């Protein structure tokens, strides 16, 4: 049957900004969805404020609304656009929750909008724990014994019946947010209270704890005629107990027998058919490690992180097919896009193994608990493909970009007592994989590692193979007869040249030479969904040493360009770089490049979708691997400047190895990144910069700091703590940091620069051809310098810069770009204080803010820069400037502090946000309010109240006008003792709340936060923490943490607080505008898109 003919216009909900548990995978699924709709001639409307995504490109969706995915905004868009149908399954939990709320409010009925795909009833049955339980009982599928509870007392009773330990699960949350394991009454009470506060329906489930069972997932598709297939199954390396998003995962399952595989498969299908899901869903199972007993854990009736992984692992385009099913197609009516001739109603057969490893950034956060459990904490993931588990695992470890060259030989191992190692095996942290290696080396038997960790010995033995190979390599003599064979075997087990080189004690180049002399080179294999049973039309490729034949032929007569992807996402590098990569590929095609080749390994992304590029190498972004591919493909060149830091860091090495780079030369990149060279350049151009110098001893550093005066910004090149940068306010501060957290030595110098207090931060994104410069936009940060640019709220156009300053910035930008002979994208950061402008740094690559600038200005800077990299110049392209905009675009950060138990939300020079949103408005206030609501910042409603607690005398004075404004807005004011004194002095009626450490005194801050009697927390800590006592700091930390955990908006800088209060005033009078990006763009005098 063809698609529903009444369907002309479809609204798609995106997932909003990236947060832990909801990341770029929804850009991938949303983009595929839009593509699938568009080729049917269906008009599409997308709501997603995540400006960095590819799906918010006006080329993908008919209309893009950069607005919060909340019932209120979605309803307004529905009223305006009048779509026939809506898709809720492609924007993660955010879209699903929003859809359920809209259905409850009768919005779909009111506007006659059909929910396409899985019906609301089925969504509710999968989301509500009790309904889910009943649904599973209906089809005879066992689930963990459990009872729902609406209060702590309820929960305690349930736990008594089930028996401790129990796990508390919360309905309607992201990535298991708020869940936890309780081993006793006290722990249970604590978890339940917190969980109830976070659940949309104030209900939790107390459940039998099945830690250490195998965790298995199936991706299931069903059409409305009940055809049902499982596209992929996946096995978690980490057994039950660790959130699947935080688990190492393999596909297909490795330790399951045929019976186990198919019993679970059949049960998955039974469940999905009974629920009546239409489209795609993910079902998680626990399988007993010593029997065929199983429990269904949960069903996600939508595209998920796992389904994105499954798509990439199998080559089956789940989101694309799910969309087709939602608009009325049946599975057997659809084609397998990889073969082009076989049906989509099949289950892929893999002839390789896939390993996913999560990437954490826990150590960036102060006070965070590094243990893994039912709450997801990772911020990214990598996927590696190989034909041995060892190969895939070692590739994946390198892909993590955490400084490891594989599972072994990392030179970063500190001695540790056996007890600590065992503790980590039992209570996993982000480092457990490496502790397993350590345990094996310490001689702890596999059996015991299994007992402690619950990780199946099959996996452990494979890890031991790697450890054993390391030993063999260490004994190997490079000239010996067996050398070639051992190296061949090591390569098969995923050893990199660098690892082998370290083992043998020679250089990486020498290993490379040796193995090539022996014909030890990897082969290119194709992912074809059918294990070679049918030929593949697509070029979805990986490299392996388990094979002796390339699957594809390399035509050297073709014009080819390789684009290096962004690799793993982590804090500071996310979907915005994928936007740049994908746009580069598209631009290459526009300029008639025969083969635009992508190398990337991030399964969440659009760039790793095999139909974006002409060839996709799902591979490591290491020197070795890029050269492997370069040598086979012989392209015109490689683009390193659009994928962020990972490819940028390879530039110099690739260039030295004879690889041709397109765009800015590696010498220029070096001239910008080497502080001394860049400094000399600035001096010669007469452009000021904050005073700085580089040191190899603490004493010298202290002397210099004394000279330029505190505070100073400290950037060590080697850190123990995870913080790369820190502001030191005094000699003691500096010394403490350099002694405790960082290492200073001739190999690890430290850079000290003057920290200018009270300065504005401004950045410029642009493109240059070496002679002319296209300034994309001047972006003003709302917060002062000292807050990382990735965490700052920013505005295009600038809100407070004088024309003098803007002219100066433009002048400096042009001078620097030309002096560095930049041929491609760049970003320069400036400080502005009292009209003086100085340069902080310059990056010769696409920046984080490039999609924000491009979309705000209607000029696709990547398209311009790609043309330049291919040899065009701005004159030929006829673009010298971006248009002035009659609106304001505001970008705000999205934080994930709620997921990271213990993490302190106070902002500083280290970036902590996981994502961003940008909204456009008539003016700054209009845009800011919409943007804030996009990042879970709930605007206070009736009879609001604010808690103000600020540090330092000066700030207590500064805050008074803000407090007064709040009062005028109808806020009831609460404050801590000293802040309240200041407010009282200014005749502002304020209620004092007692300190955290005075728990017995009422009214106490803790109670007010826990009971959510506060709608807004303004906590501006003293800039220099030394001036406050330890107890004050601890108190403030607790306040911030509670605000985070109880979802109360918290602002930690004066500037942002001020901006928000002004915006609230405006909002009260005017409300917000609802306009699409397309409408904004078409209001511009010209566009380049």
């Amino acid at each position: 049957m063809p698609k529903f003919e009444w369907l002309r216009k479809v609204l798609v909900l995106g997932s909003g900004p990236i947060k832990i548990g909801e990341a770029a995978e929804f850009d991938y699924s949303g983009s595929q969805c839009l593509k699938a709709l568009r080729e049917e001639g269906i008009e599409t409307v997308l709501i997603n404020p995540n400006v960095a995504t590819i799906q918010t490109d006006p080329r993908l969706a008919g209309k893009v609304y950069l607005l919060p995915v909340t019932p209120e905004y979605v309803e307004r868009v529905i009223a305006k656009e009048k779509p026939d149908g809506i898709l809720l399954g492609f924007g993660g939990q955010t879209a699903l929750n929003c859809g359920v709320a809209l259905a409850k409010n009768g919005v779909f009925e009111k506007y006659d909008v059909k929910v396409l795909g899985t019906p609301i009833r089925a969504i509710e049955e999968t989301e509500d724990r009790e309904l889910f339980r009943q649904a599973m009982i209906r089809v005879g599928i066992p689930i963990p014994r459990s009872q729902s509870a609406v209060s702590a007392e309820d929960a305690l009773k349930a736990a008594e019946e089930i028996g401790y330990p129990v796990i508390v699960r919360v309905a309607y949350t992201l990535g298991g947010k708020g869940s936890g394991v309780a081993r006793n009454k006290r722990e249970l009470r604590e978890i339940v209270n917190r969980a109830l506060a976070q659940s949309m329906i104030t209900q939790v489930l107390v459940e039998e704890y099945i830690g250490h069972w195998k965790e298995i997932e199936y991706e299931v598709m069903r059409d409305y005629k009940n055809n049902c297939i499982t596209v992929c199954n996946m096995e978690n390396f980490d057994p039950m107990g660790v959130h699947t998003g935080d688990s190492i995962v393999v596909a297909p399952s490795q330790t399951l027998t045929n019976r186990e595989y198919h019993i679970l498969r059949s049960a998955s299908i039974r469940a999905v058919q009974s629920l009546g899901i239409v489209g795609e869903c993910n079902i998680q199972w626990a399988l007993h490690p010593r029997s065929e007993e199983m429990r269904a854990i949960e069903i996600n009736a939508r595209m998920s992180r796992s389904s994105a992984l499954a798509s990439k692992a199998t080559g089956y385009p789940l989101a694309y097919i799910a969309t087709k099913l939602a608009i009325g197609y049946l599975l057997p009516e659809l084609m397998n896009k990889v073969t082009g001739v076989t049906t989509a109603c099949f289950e892929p057969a893999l002839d390789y193994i896939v390993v996913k490893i999560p990437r954490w950034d826990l150590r960036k956060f102060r006070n965070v608990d590094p243990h893994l459990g039912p709450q997801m904490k990772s911020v990214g993931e990598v996927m590696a493909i190989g034909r041995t588990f060892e190969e895939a695992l070692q590739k994946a470890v390198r892909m993590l970009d955490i400084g490891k060259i594989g599972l072994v030989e990392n030179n970063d191992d500190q001695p540790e007592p056996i007890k600590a190692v065992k503790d980590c095996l039992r209570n996993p942290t982000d480092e457990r994989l490496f502790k397993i290696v350590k345990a094996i080396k310490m001689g702890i038997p596999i059996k015991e590692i299994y007992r402690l960790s619950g990780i199946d010995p099959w996996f452990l033995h494979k890890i031991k193979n790697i450890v054993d190979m390391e030993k063999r390599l260490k004994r190997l003599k490079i000239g010996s007869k067996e050398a070639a064979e051992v190296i061949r075997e090591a390569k098969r087990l995923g050893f990199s040249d660098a690892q082998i080189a370290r083992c043998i004690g020679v250089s990486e180049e020498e290993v490379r030479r040796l193995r090539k002399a022996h014909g030890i080179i990897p082969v290119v294999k194709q992912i074809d969904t059918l294990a070679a049973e049918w030929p593949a039309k697509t070029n979805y490729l990986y490299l392996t040493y388990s094979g002796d034949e390339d699957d594809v032929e390399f035509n050297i007569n073709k014009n080819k360009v390789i684009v290096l992807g962004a690799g793993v996402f982590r804090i500071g590098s996310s979907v915005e770089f994928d936007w740049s990569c994908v746009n580069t590929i598209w631009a290459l095609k526009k300029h008639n490049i025969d083969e635009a080749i992508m190398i990337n390994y991030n399964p969440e992304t659009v760039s790793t979708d095999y139909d974006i590029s002409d060839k996709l190498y799902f591979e490591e972004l290491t020197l070795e691997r890029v050269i492997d591919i370069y040598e086979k493909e012989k392209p015109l060149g490689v683009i390193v400047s659009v994928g962020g830091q990972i490819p940028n860091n390879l530039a110099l090495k690739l260039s030295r190895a004879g690889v041709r780079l397109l765009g800015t030369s590696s010498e220029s990149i070096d001239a910008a990144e080497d502080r001394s060279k860049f400094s000399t350049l600035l001096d010669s151009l007469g452009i000021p910069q904050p005073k700085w110098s580089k040191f190899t001893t603490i004493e010298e550093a202290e002397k210099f700091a004394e000279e330029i005066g505190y505070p100073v910004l400290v950037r060590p090149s080697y850190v123990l703590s995870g913080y790369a940068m820190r502001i030191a306010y005094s000699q003691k501060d500096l010394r403490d940091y350099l002694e405790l957290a960082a290492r200073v030595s001739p190999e690890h110098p430290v850079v000290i620069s003057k920290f200018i207090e009270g300065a504005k931060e401004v950045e410029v994104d642009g493109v240059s051809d070496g002679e002319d410069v296209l300034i994309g936009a001047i972006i003003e940060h709302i917060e002062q310098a000292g807050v990382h640019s990735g965490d700052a709220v920013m505005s295009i156009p600038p809100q407070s810069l004088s024309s003098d300053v803007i002219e100066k910035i433009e002048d400096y930008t042009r001078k620097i770009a030309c002096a560095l002979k930049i041929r491609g994208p760049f970003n320069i950061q400036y400080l502005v204080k009292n009209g003086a402008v100085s340069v902080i740094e310059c990056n010769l690559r696409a920046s984080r803010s490039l999609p924000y600038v491009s979309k705000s200005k209607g000029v696709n800077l990547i398209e311009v820069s790609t043309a330049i990299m291919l040899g065009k110049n701005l004159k030929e392209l006829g673009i010298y400037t971006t248009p002035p905009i009659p609106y304001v675009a505001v970008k705000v950060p999205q934080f994930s502090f709620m997921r990271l138990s213990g993490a302190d939300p106070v902002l500083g020079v280290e970036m902590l946000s996981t994502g961003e949103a940008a909204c456009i408005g008539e003016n700054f206030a209009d845009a800011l309010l919409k943007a804030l609501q996009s990042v879970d910042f709930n605007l206070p409603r009736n009879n609001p109240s604010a808690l103000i607690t600020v540090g330092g005398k000066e700030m207590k004075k500064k805050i008074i006008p803000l407090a007064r404004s709040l009062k005028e807005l109808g806020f009831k004011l609460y404050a801590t003792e000293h802040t309240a004194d200041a407010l009282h002095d200014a005749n502002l009626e304020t209620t004092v709340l007692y300190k955290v450490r005075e728990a017995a005194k009422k009214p106490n801050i803790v109670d007010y936060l826990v009971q959510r009697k506060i709608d807004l927390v303004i906590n501006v800590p003293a800039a220099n923490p030394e001036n406050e006592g330890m107890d004050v700091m601890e108190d403030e930390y607790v306040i911030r943490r509670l605000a985070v955990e109880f979802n109360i908006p918290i602002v930690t800088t004066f500037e942002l607080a001020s901006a928000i209060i002004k915006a609230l005033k405006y909002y009260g009078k005017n409300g917000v505008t609802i306009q699409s990006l397309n409408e904004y763009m078409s209001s511009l005098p010209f566009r380049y898109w």
Partner: protein
Amino acid sequence: MGIKSRPEKAGKAVLVLEDESLFIGKGFGAVGKISGEVVFSTGMVGYPESLTDPSYHGQILTLTYPLIGNYGVPAYDSDEFGVPVRFESLGIKVAGLIIQELCLKPYHWASSRTLNEWLRSEGVPGIYGIDTRRLTKKLREKGVMLGILQVCREGEEPKLDSLAKEVKNVQDPNRRDLVGEVTIKEPIYYDCKGSKRVVLIDCGSKASIIRNLLKRHVDVLRVPYNFSTKEILEYKPNGVLVSNGPGDPKKCVNTIETVRSLIEEGISIMGICLGSQILALAMGGDTYKLKYGHRSQNQPVLDLETGCCYITTQNHGYAVSFESLKGTNLKCWFINANDKTVEGIKLKNKLSFAVQWHPEAAPGPYDTESLFDKFLRGIG
């Protein structure tokens, strides 16, 4: 578990195909030299089931999934009726096994030995460490080929030149009476005190077919493939099931004749795999050899009556010709959604039917087990 299971006796191994292509790898299982038809299966699980499937008799099986032996090999336990629980027959039926990587340290609660130990104890040679994807692509492009698999003793070098000559003279196993080699010699009666009785014509039946009948409370009389119509009718069966089996269906002259006369006698027939081809031949249809067969657990079959699609396990090198059904009493019921070959046939106005795949699964999906219910409902 825990035993050092290094294949200490097996050394180098070599696979030579009739087009003289060579694959040199490492040997495991038994030392020795065998010949057969080299085929591939893309199933990712179920090597104990596949290796004991009598349909593979005479074939050297390539598994395209690269990591094999991960969960070891279970013990030969049988249920109360003497039907093996975790295998499809009591012994490895493939002539040889070809894989990418052999798991030396398997782990599973039901495992009693390694794959290597199992093959060695049953005298079956295996080769690993070759590019199985290259081999599979070759088979896909050129069609299945005859080949020789030799596992040398440790230290021994294979004689590649003589193997290349030898492979030219390998006899096609499909010219043998393969079914005769795997069928039972004497009838076996599985009495579960059921209300119905089915005669299972054993052309190399998988144990799961028997288990599927028994679990539906049907008594099974399993008879040799050359049992006569008269002998079968003496047992007064409610219906007759013709099993799967190896090789060319046209070799089963007697069985074809038996099925034809059973139908004339008004007996309802269910055919599985080879049984399906036999039913077609009995009704005047024709069969032919596929280029490289269907061997996998992900074959989609389309029900032409309902438009529904099912995922099935398949293991066959021959197929029923669609054209040949014209003018017979058979109609095409299922086709393969990929290559449109005949997957299921039905006797017009009768209850008899047959499918080219394995509704009994093992290995593979259980999605079409209900065909047994359909058959049993039909036979009253």
